[in-house]
């Protein structure tokens, strides 16, 4: 009788964020559907109440079904039988429960049988499901693909595919190939258009495809012969019922074992074009990847929460030298830092999701009517923020979640290294988060733009311009000093006018910005509720020390030193 939503007050806190009123109004287009659909909200209060109650269902399914199934799913894993992926029995149970409860296609509009939920409650559901089983969260979270079809597909494609999600259709995004991993421009899978039957056909190999045997797959393919870069790539939707794809194998992985990772061979497989040709990677996949990165952020926070809870429980129960190990400074500091860092990445997760929510809502409004000038400004503002916050979130949340899982296992000692406790699974599952949907190193490449164009610094200054309670003023002053220090060190790196030197320090600079931004977010959380005061205080202390050490590293370096690092 566990509920992973109601037992975690942090979620309700973020659901009550002041910006929610705007988000819901935009998403619901001023509650225009209230009389048309019996399940549409009538006003803001009604909408929040619905999100809260729906999250309670997700929390119950996660606590009572998905969580208890996780160990079995990890052990059994999926199997390849007669060219079909058979999920582990627990996975089948999980999917069935979520499907019957109507949890697939949550963000789709009601006209396609969706719930029309904004990103915030959807991402909360993703966090809650990930806490129960991060591997399963992948299969469920791939409903993101529906969003891409909705945003870029033709009406014909939308009408054909979107209503299938609520009925439980699963999805996959087929991007990676043996020679095109981080570098998706190198995708080779061929798409040829046949004039006679007016259909596109796919031929080639995809690799490392999560949930490769899904009902509905989005496939990135080269539609323009004799091209070799991103401009020759288009996005297609492939329907599993065509049976024109073989599954060569399911990978044997370190973690997220319940999630089938497949190698696929397309042989003259019929597919439909999404949007326009040549826009596949440049526009559609970029959008798809951004929501997937937000998804990995949610997965990381869910894993961090699970790891911290396991460690906290174990440290309270385990006695050594005559007392519970939680009473030793070496252990309680670890635990508190884990909790504080989880709070920090959760705040960053929902802040990013809010930015995405607002710009996406404007995007869809613009499909119906022209945005007016202030709306366009607002759209651009939030789009810019979402663009630089998304890679920052993916980077920081996945890295923290790994540190937290590592420390959680450490607190378990030898027992943690055995299969007896869930922590070893959490530790293995966490490892993928810094790798897929763009490695941490690639997130830095995207995020450094936010350092270069000043968007991070502007966001920080904006946070610091909002007044806080007098008792929190000292934290704000510290953050102001950190912002000042950040601005100066960025200038210093830029003075050398050497790209490689900037790349060399890019991660340090991005992480410095991250420390200040998360500090600001926790400060404002603390301003809204005293519960977060401790986290704000401790996080800002850690962040400040970390930034000082990074500044010291940068100050000691010069472009001419780079040679020493090259082999």
């Amino acid at each position, binding site marked *: 009788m566990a509920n992973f939503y109601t037992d975690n007050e942090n979620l309700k806190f973020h659901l009550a964020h002041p910006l929610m009123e705007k988000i819901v109004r935009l998403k619901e287009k001023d509650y225009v559907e209230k009389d048309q659909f019996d399940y549409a909200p009538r006003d803001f209060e009604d909408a929040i*109440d619905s999100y809260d*109650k729906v999250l309670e269902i997700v929390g*119950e399914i996660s606590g009572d079904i998905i969580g208890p199934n996780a160990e079995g799913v990890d052990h059994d894993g999926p199997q390849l039988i007669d060219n079909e992926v058979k999920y582990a029995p627990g996975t089948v149970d999980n999917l069935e429960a979520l499907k019957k409860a109507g949890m697939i296609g949550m963000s789709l509009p009601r006209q396609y049988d969706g719930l029309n939920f904004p990103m915030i409650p959807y991402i909360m559901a993703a966090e809650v499901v990930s806490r129960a089983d991060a591997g399963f969260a992948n299969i469920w979270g791939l409903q993101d693909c529906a969003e891409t079809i909705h945003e870029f597909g033709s009406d014909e494609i939308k009408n054909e595919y979107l209503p299938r999600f609520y009925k439980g259709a699963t999805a996959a995004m087929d991007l990676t190939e043996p020679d095109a991993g981080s570098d998706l421009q190198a995708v080779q899978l061929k798409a040829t258009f046949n004039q006679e039957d007016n259909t596109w056909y796919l031929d080639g190999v995809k690799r490392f495809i999560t949930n490769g045997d899904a009902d509905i797959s989005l496939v990135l393919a080269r539609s323009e012969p004799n091209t070799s870069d991103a401009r020759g790539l288009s996005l297609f939707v492939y329907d599993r019922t065509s049976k024109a794809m073989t599954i060569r194998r399911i990978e044997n992985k370190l973690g997220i074992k319940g999630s089938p990772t497949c190698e696929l061979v397309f042989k003259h497989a019929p597919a439909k074009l999404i949007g326009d040709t040549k826009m596949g990677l440049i526009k559609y996949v970029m959008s798809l990847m951004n929501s997937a990165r937000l998804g990995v952020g949610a997965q990381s926070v869910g894993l961090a929460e699970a790891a911290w809870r396991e460690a906290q429980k174990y440290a309270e129960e385990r006695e050594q030298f005559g007392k519970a190990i939680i009473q030793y400074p070496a252990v309680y500091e670890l635990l508190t830092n884990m909790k504080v860092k989880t709070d920090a990445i959760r705040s960053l997760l929902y802040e990013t999701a809010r930015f995405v929510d607002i710009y996406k809502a404007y995007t869809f409004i613009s499909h119906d009517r022209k945005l007016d000038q202030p709306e366009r400004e607002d759209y651009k503002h939030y789009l810019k923020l979402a663009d630089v916050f998304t890679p920052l979130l993916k980077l920081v949340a996945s890295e923290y979640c790994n540190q937290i899982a590592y420390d959680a296992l450490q607190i378990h000692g030898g027992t943690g290294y055995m299969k007896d406790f869930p922590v070893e699974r959490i530790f293995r599952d966490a490892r993928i988060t810094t790798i897929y949907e763009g490695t941490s190193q690639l997130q830095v490449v995207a995020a450094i733009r936010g350092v270069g164009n000043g968007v991070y610094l502007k966001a920080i200054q904006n946070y610091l311009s909002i007044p806080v309670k007098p008792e929190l003023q000292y934290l704000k002053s510290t953050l102001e000093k950190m912002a000042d220090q950040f601005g100066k060190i960025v200038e210093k790196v830029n003075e050398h006018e050497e790209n490689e030197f900037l790349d060399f320090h890019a991660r340090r600079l991005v992480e410095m910005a991250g420390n200040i931004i998360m500090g600001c977010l926790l400060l404002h959380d603390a301003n809204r509720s005293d519960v977060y005061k401790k986290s704000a205080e401790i996080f800002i202390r850690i962040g400040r020390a970390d930034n000082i050490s990074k500044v010291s590293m940068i100050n000691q370096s010069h472009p001419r030193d780079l040679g020493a690092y090259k082999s």
Partner: protein
Amino acid sequence: MSFKIIVLAKQVPDTRNVGKDAMKADGTVNRAALPAIFNPEDLNALELALRIKDKLVDCEVIVLTMGPFRAAEIIREAMYRGADKGYLITDRKFAGSDTLATSYAISLAVKKLEPYHLVISGRQAIDGDTAQVGPQTAEKLNIPQITYAEEIIDVDQTSITVKRRLERGVEVVKSKLPVAITVHSSAPDCRQRVTKLLMKYKHCRTVTELQNETKDYTELYNLRPYLQLNEWTVDDLHADVSMLGLSGSPTKVKKIENVVFASKDSKVLSSSDADIDGLMKELLSSHVIG
């Protein structure tokens, strides 16, 4: 005619997770300290009813509950899972009813809903554990009863085949309709609440609940009359007041005891295979495990 199922459900204090303040000093249940929940076996009964509805399609599932005003929550919870509507039997005059008075009131309400095919409920409620209300209601309605049901094997407009879970095995019985069925906890768990049904029905209110709402629901209720939940009082049921409440309840609680389990004797075992084997056999034969 559409197949009509009446599910009897009760709101009970959650006695499964009791803390130290679960009982008051006088030995009665401290209801304030325990959350009010849907009686677990009534949820099993609801699931069996909803499975019949899945199969027959032309089928109506009606929830009937008796209790204070807040018990309307049970009706909403059932509707979030697929029930079509519900009735709350509520009146101060019911207070203090034992199983006899309760089944009298429920049987009157069921009669008001005639014609029906099936009355289905949990075997027993976790607050009283009497398992009497289902069978007594069947007697008062003068219809056959099948207790300890685990699975509905077959059903049509005139008959039903049910698997019963008994102490030493299972039994399959067939009955004509209408029939009253009580459901055992070994029946399948109830399905989850469905997002769209929840959002559709969450504004359902009884008349009394509406009076305490701060928001004005008039417009919404005119638009969607199904949001108004039915409330029945003693007068609506034309009940004989002497057969209700304390006066209609021959059951008197003589004494309530707090039982504290304590170990009496202990046994020392060696780690030899023979000793472990002996312990396993002992635990199996006393049904502690297995």
